[in-house]
């Protein structure tokens, strides 16, 4: 299962800051600023017309640290992903609508049995050091990712990959053990960036829009425009600098004091305050990112579907989105992959029904209510808040929630995937890769311990079905099972909210859940004040 759209925990930074400063402080500066009003005048920028070439973009991001890397296939945190996306290209790409489009490859064709994928490479692509990219580099890349002795991020997803055949300079064939109808999507994952045969992460060479200039872990990295880039006119920027921040306050302060041009992932509660600043624009992107509650279906009390149903009915989803995401999100219906074309839109939207929840609990042998422990952690913005809001809402159904808050390293430690009742988070994905990742008995991240033979059969069959019509039907049936009996409470999908100076152009909403248009800085440009 790939690591596409998975990211690292929110980072020690955020947690530690909360540890020191206490939650809620994040709003301190901004509130003071709001009170002070804005005396600064915004420069005037004409953002219409064609992009301006040149300029140096400074981007601030939280979530990095001493473990930062430039390795194409080992990205763990947000800043890693931002670097990787700009240094390395993938064979196919995800557009901002989460659809597939050509990248280093012009097209990928699959045989009707779903086992052989033929990929046609562009013939005009060169690496940062000037050497042309060929099929041999593609093969070396995927061998590196799936190295059995040192598997990289994407290795789990690429398990069905048996052999990579270099047919010609610009033609590669992927042979799979089992049919994978969505294999082209794996080729678009940022964890599948193409590197040269002799790739050395100490000398990070790729084909991306920017080439490596300097890098200091936990501090900053600078990249220069790739003059040989295969894409017409892009990138526009001369230089890109990605700066690590360990704290939301420092991040926002840097934007307000004009030390950075754009920042990724700001707390939703600050949107209104930042919006009132005439110099700042907000980028608000709907995404398929979700932070579910995870109930283990093989353990009491959640081994009884009536209890799971009662918990799902205890949630006021509208209120969750309002309080946890400050309204910047959409309610969920206990199914993932909302952007998948096969997503079931006709199943009734679950809403809060406390009476029914109490009745179900009584039927399940808990007439006097039930007490459960919910393990939460600052694994993603809003996770801890969601736990707290849920604890409040569940009281009405006779559910007493004891919140046990741990730090992310503990959360992702030995007991990760073993907690009876906890949370997790995922970025945008399509249904099948997501189900492979978390809903089958052999899934790498099966936190709910789902082991439903019918679901497994449907997912496997859909995975092997290349034809879209029948595949959609199979996926809908699988989603119905998750909706009825799954271990997830998927109460909402969070928006990704970024902020940038008005003179920055080219940033558009992006569904992936990655900040700042999916970190595609090659399309970003900057305007001088008039």
């Amino acid at each position: 299962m790939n690591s596409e759209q998975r990211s690292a925990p929110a980072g020690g930074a955020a947690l530690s800051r909360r540890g020191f400063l206490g939650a809620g402080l994040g709003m301190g500066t901004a509130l003071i600023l709001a009170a002070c009003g804005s005396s600064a005048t915004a420069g005037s920028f004409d953002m219409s017309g064609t992009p301006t070439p040149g300029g140096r973009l400074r981007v601030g991001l939280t979530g990095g640290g001493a473990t930062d890397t430039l390795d194409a296939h080992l990205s763990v945190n947000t800043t890693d992903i931002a670097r990787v996306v700009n240094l390395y290209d993938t064979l196919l790409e995800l557009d901002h609508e989460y659809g597939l489009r050509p990248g280093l490859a012009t097209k990928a064709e699959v045989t009707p049995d779903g086992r052989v994928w033929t990929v046609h490479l562009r013939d005009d692509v060169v690496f940062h050091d000037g050497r042309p990219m060929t099929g041999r580099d593609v093969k070396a890349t995927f061998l590196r990712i799936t190295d059995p002795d040192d598997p990289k991020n994407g290795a789990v997803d690429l398990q069905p990959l048996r052999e990579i055949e270099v047919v010609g300079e610009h033609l590669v064939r992927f042979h799979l053990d089992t049919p994978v109808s969505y294999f082209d999507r794996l080729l678009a994952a940022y964890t599948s960036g193409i590197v040269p045969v002799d790739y050395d992460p100490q000398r990070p060479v790729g084909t991306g829009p920017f080439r490596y200039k300097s890098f200091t872990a936990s501090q900053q990295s600078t990249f220069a425009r790739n003059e040989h880039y295969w894409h017409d006119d892009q990138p526009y920027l001369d230089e890109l600098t990605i700066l690590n921040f360990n704290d939301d306050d420092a991040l926002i302060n840097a934007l307000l004091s004009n030390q950075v041009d754009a920042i990724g992932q700001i707390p939703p509660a600050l949107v209104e305050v930042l919006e009132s600043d005439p110099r700042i624009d907000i980028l608000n992107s709907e995404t398929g990112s979700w932070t579910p509650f995870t109930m283990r279906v093989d353990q009491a009390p959640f081994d009884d579907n009536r209890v799971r149903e009662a918990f799902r009915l205890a949630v006021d989803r509208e209120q969750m989105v309002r309080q946890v995401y400050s309204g910047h999100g959409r309610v969920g219906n206990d199914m993932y992959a909302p952007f998948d074309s096969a997503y079931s839109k006709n199943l009734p939207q679950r809403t809060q029904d406390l009476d029914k929840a109490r009745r179900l609990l009584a039927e399940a042998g808990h007439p006097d209510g039930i007490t459960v422990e919910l393990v939460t952690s600052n694994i993603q913005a809003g996770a801890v808040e969601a736990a707290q809001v849920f604890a409040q809402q569940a009281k009405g159904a006779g559910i007493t929630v004891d919140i046990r808050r741990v730090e992310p390293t503990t959360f992702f430690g030995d007991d990760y995937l073993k907690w009876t009742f906890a949370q997790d988070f995922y970025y945008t994905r399509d249904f099948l890769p997501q189900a492979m990742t978390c809903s089958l008995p052999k899934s790498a991240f099966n936190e709910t311990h789902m082991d439903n033979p019918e679901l497994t059969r449907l997912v496997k069959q859909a995975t092997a079905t290349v034809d879209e019509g029948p595949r959609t039907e199979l996926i809908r049936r699988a989603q119905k099972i998750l909706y009825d009996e799954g271990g997830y409470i998927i109460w909402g999908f969070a928006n990704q909210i970024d902020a940038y100076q008005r003179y920055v152009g080219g940033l558009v909403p992006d569904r992936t859940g990655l900040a700042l248009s999916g970190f595609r800085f090659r399309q970003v440009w900057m305007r001088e004040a008039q």
Partner: protein
Amino acid sequence: MARFIAKRLAISVVILFLVSVLVFIATLLLPGDPAQAILGQQATPERLAALREQLNLNDPVVQRYLEWLGGIFTGDFGTSTATGASVGAYLGPKIVNSLVLMLIAAVVSIPVGILIGSYSAIRRGKAADNATTYATLVVAALPDFVIGIVLIAVLSTNVFDVLPAVTMNPPGTHVWDFPPQLVMPILTLVIVVLPYIVRMMRATMVEALDGGFVEMARLKGVPERQVITRHAMPHALGPVAQVIAFQLAWLAGGIVVVEYLFRYPGIGAALVDAVHNRDIQVVQTIALLIAAVYIVVNLLADVVGIVTNPKLRTEPAK
């Protein structure tokens, strides 16, 4: 006095050793190991096994501790599991950065604090004294991050926008190459420690000014300026040295919050990162360093106390 200092130094070494053991145990008690901390949600069994092998995490803990302790005596602080670099090379520049911050903060706040405190004592009961008393009381009650946030809001964002809000020096340059960036963190530290120095200086100065020797000097016709600088001040400085030492020691430990707020690349930020990454070698080295600063600074304070107080210069008879 030499014997006293030697004895204190010997005790310090023992304390440092105990600190290293305690920190080592404490980091072991944290759930998870470096491999898990680094990989987070990506921690599949295969990747964990590969990373543990790379990081030598399969060695027994006692062996890892002894190797680290042995390395210290040769100036080798081990290898950081998070970065793969030597701890010395990784922390060296950060230590320098933090020391720069601390030293400038100390150099500014000590004389300023002594001056304000003395002035306040001389003008006892007058408006200036009252204002100082109230101001120091209020500021002393504010946590450091509140001071920092208010400073940022006023000086580097919408209101005045005269100073950079965070530290950002390009790789290959030093933080002090950009002096404006140092102002805010230093100002925060100064404001944090100043009230204590001022209040202590005022208190001891008041006591000194009330002392018989000051009255005697005045009666003998010594000019007031000289009374204050030659007679009262030296007497007041001994106890103040203790407070200053305490504040400097606080700076060493409390710099974490300030560095965080201003994105300052010092040991504070490194410590938080290292705890998060379970980077034991780095955590230990920083903990030892902070402990060493505590010990040295307190030792210096005791020496100043002895020098300024003749009664303490001789050791009690055994």
